[in-house]
């Protein structure tokens, strides 16, 4: 992870021709972010203090204070997003990235957001989950006219409820979200004199990401916006494994993970090695008495979940969506199953016609994880990634929780592979097979007629007699 430099290379973005320079002169500057690496925000320079979240492969939007009001400036515009090294897509985003920067405020803050539209069509911003005046809710046509291309609208309200929120367009919504136009909003709780909140614990590590899905065909670089169900890129913050930053924690730290779902299906998010509790939902903090331990929590469409646990098991622990095809790269859903098909005598024959042909799938798909075969341009393998012990055979919504004994409090860097204590890893049995405990087979299904039982012959074509 790279430390971000908030104002260094960012602030001098030139306004697009459609947005007059003079018109933007009085607005807050337009911070831009140029990389898909995780940018850890600094402590807030102005306003009420809070502990910023770390947006996986994202960043938080700087603001300016104007007479006690926090002023942000979002610019909706076409962006180029790297999903992982070797795979880049043309998306729509905010301030140079998809998803847009995370907006972080504190409960009770007066917030003014300037939204400049540099898209080719109109847009709007809906502040998903917030309590706000009806005219600020952002449903174009219902609450406001849409923001035309080239125009800037201003939203202003008070962040009344602490929690995890999202923002996204509510104009040509399906297209714009299929193109990646979305972002996170965190309202930190107002703390008491002792720096506490009755329902919201202070987390040592506070991670946040959005679940998003795209349909990007192999060899292309623009999502198919009209896809309804058959998505092939399952992403966290418009990143896929192995492009997703790890979640790093020192042993014993309290870790919070905030997840919002802006895809069209649910995602059971699963963390290895630990139990967690859902401490907050879309509706706010969950009372402690209503929490229960889990290792997987399902996040339905349009929902947000805030989960917390103490990272007390050192190691590299998988964190992923439990729908196994969501931890895959782009795959051909119509490709037939080849398992168990004898290819003997056919390989040479096919290679005469297609010299680069190799057998795949005869034994299963694991070949994919190890083979490095040329693929269509701008396409990631269906399964990829290599760990210290071999191929991970993963893709999509997959990352690693890295718990280590000794980490500085502010150190968010990838600590590398976990070195397991000797004797704590599964090993290959070297002894004699006879020394193994017996592995009894499951009892055979009792279809054979028992001695003495009447033999029943069923009538009808085909009968019950199995010819083969």
């Amino acid at each position, binding site marked *: 992870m790279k430390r971000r430099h908030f104002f260094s290379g960012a602030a001098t973005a030139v306004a697009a021709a459609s947005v007059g320079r003079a018109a933007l002169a009085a607005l807050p500057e337009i911070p831009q972010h140029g990389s898909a690496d995780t940018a850890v925000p600094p402590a807030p320079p102005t306003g009420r203090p809070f502990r910023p979240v770390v947006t996986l492969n994202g960043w938080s939007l700087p603001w300016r204070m104007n007479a006690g009001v926090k002023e942000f400036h979002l610019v909706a515009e076409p962006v180029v997003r790297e999903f992982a090294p070797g795979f880049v897509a043309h998306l729509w985003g905010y301030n140079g990235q998809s998803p847009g920067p995370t907006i972080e405020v504190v409960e009770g803050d007066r917030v003014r957001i300037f939204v400049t539209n540099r898209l080719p069509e109109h847009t709007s911003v809906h502040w998903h989950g917030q309590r706000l005046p009806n005219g600020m809710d952002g449903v174009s046509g219902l609450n406001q006219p849409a923001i035309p291309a080239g125009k800037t609208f201003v939203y202003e309200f008070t962040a009344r409820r602490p929690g995890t929120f999202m923002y996204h367009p509510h104009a040509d919504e399906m297209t714009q979200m299929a193109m990646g136009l979305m972002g996170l909003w965190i309202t930190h709780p107002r703390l008491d004199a002792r720096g506490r909140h009755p329902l919201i614990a202070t987390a040592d590590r506070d991670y946040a990401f959005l679940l998003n899905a795209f349909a990007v065909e192999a060899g292309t670089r623009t999502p198919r916006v009209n896809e309804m169900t058959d998505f092939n890129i399952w992403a966290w913050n418009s990143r896929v494994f192995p492009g997703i930053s790890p979640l790093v924690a020192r042993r014993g730290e309290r870790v919070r993970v905030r997840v919002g779902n802006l895809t069209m299906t649910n995602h059971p998010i699963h963390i290895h090695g630990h139990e967690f509790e859902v401490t907050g939902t879309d509706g706010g903090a969950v009372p402690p008495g209503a929490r229960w331990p889990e290792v997987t929590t399902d996040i339905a469409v349009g929902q947000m979940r805030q989960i917390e646990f103490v990272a007390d098991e050192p190691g590299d622990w998988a964190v992923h969506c439990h729908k196994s095809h969501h931890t895959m790269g*782009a795959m051909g859903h119509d490709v037939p199953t080849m398992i168990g098909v004898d290819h003997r005598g056919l390989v040479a024959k096919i290679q005469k*016609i*297609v010299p680069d*042909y*190799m057998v*795949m799938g005869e034994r299963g798909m694991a070949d994919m994880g190890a083979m490095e075969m*040329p693929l*269509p341009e701008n396409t990631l393998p269906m399964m990829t990634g290599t760990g210290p012990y071999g191929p991970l055979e993963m893709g999509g919504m997959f990352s690693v929780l890295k718990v280590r004994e000794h980490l500085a409090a502010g150190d968010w860097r990838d600590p590398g592979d976990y070195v397991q204590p000797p004797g704590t890893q599964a090993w290959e049995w070297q002894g004699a097979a006879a020394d193994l405990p017996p592995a009894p087979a499951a009892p055979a299904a009792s279809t054979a007629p028992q001695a003495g039982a009447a033999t029943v012959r069923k009538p009808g074509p085909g009968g019950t007699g199995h010819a083969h």
Partner: protein
Amino acid sequence: MTAPRTAAWGALAAALLLAGCASVSPDGLRSQVQTLADGRSAGVAAPALPSADPAARARADAAIVQWLAGPLAADDAVRIALLRNPGLQARLAALGVADAQRVQALTLPNPTLTLGRFRSGHEREIERTLGLGLIDLVTLPWRTRWQGQQMEQATLDAAQDVVRLAFDTRRAWLRAVAAEQVAATQERMHEAADAGAELARRMARVGNWSRLQQAREQALWADSAAQLARARLDAATEREQLSRLMGLWGPAAHYTLPDRLPNLPVEPEASEGIEARALRERLDVRAARLELDRVADTEGFAGVAPWAGGIGLAYTRNTTTEQDTGHADVKRGWEVELAVPLFDWGGAARSQARGRTLQSAAQLQDVALRARSEARTAWLGYRTAYDLARQQRDAVVPLRRFISEETTLRYNGMLASVWQMLAEARASSQAVANALQAQRDFWLAEADLQRALAGTSGGASSAVASTALPGAAAGRAANPESQGH
């Protein structure tokens, strides 16, 4: 006494001399045919024609054996056809026959000797008359010229048949080579379908596919098997056609063909001056021009012929012997026989001749018009075939290959199935087969163009319309007698 005798002998000598000029060509005019066909024999320089000389025949046989030993080149196929095609041999033999007939026609009729013995009361008369019809003698120079022209025309006709045979053989060679290549491509396509069908069978066997899915691949296999059978038949038929034109059969017909057609030229020939070249070089235009000359030449003579036809000259020596005295009286004298132009002044003959001249002029115009038009058509066909072949080679085949490669990449990524990959490989092979056929069509069009510019009219064959029956154009050359001349 001496003077008329000398004159008579002189006339006879002159007649004999003239008659002697018209001797039979020793090689049956083959060298003339060969000279005319040179530069027009489908790109082959000075190909030999079958010779009557046994030594030359042996040399030709040796050369043919050598040409047939390696992959048979197009030029060698043309050479073999010109040496071995039986139809052409018959054609050339017929030309020799015509030549002999010409010489026969120019031979003067033998003079007539009339002997008479008459007896009257006191006299015995012996009459000896040596008569000679003068018409043949008088017209001999003209007739020699006309017969010569006619033979020249017959030679031109024969040369056109040589040219046609040369081009037809070249076309047959192109078709045979392309058909073999196309069959090889079909072979590859069938192997792809075969692999797909076998894999489908194994898929169904282990339960990964239904019998329906398997049946689809099986159907593809059956289609490709039928296509392959047709392609093989095509290759055999085209090769048979080539062998027939070359006059080969039996073991000699077991030659191999090259495995590729010549490459397309970098630049196609331009269309400048093609009509002028056709008018200048085509043999049929030349023949029509010659015919007009000949007919016009005879026109002046036509008016004279009716009354000149009866000219006769006779020398008579009569001996009259008186029986009583035994005194013999000898009478010598000349007799000239002339037709009196009382009824036929030759007007009808002259009109007939004039009509013939007009007819020939119109025919020349017709031939020239056709030559120009064929030159243009052939060039257009040539140019279009070139563009189509280039497009197939430079655009379609690379595109298909690219699609096939990209599909393989998708197969690598488990984004496409092995059957999709095989289907694209089949489509790619089909594009190669189409490109081969387009390349063949270009060279066929090129042969047509060369023939149309320098050779002669080729009948109805067209290269771009590749669906034409392969043997249709060649049938003529194998039976050249069918052309009227």
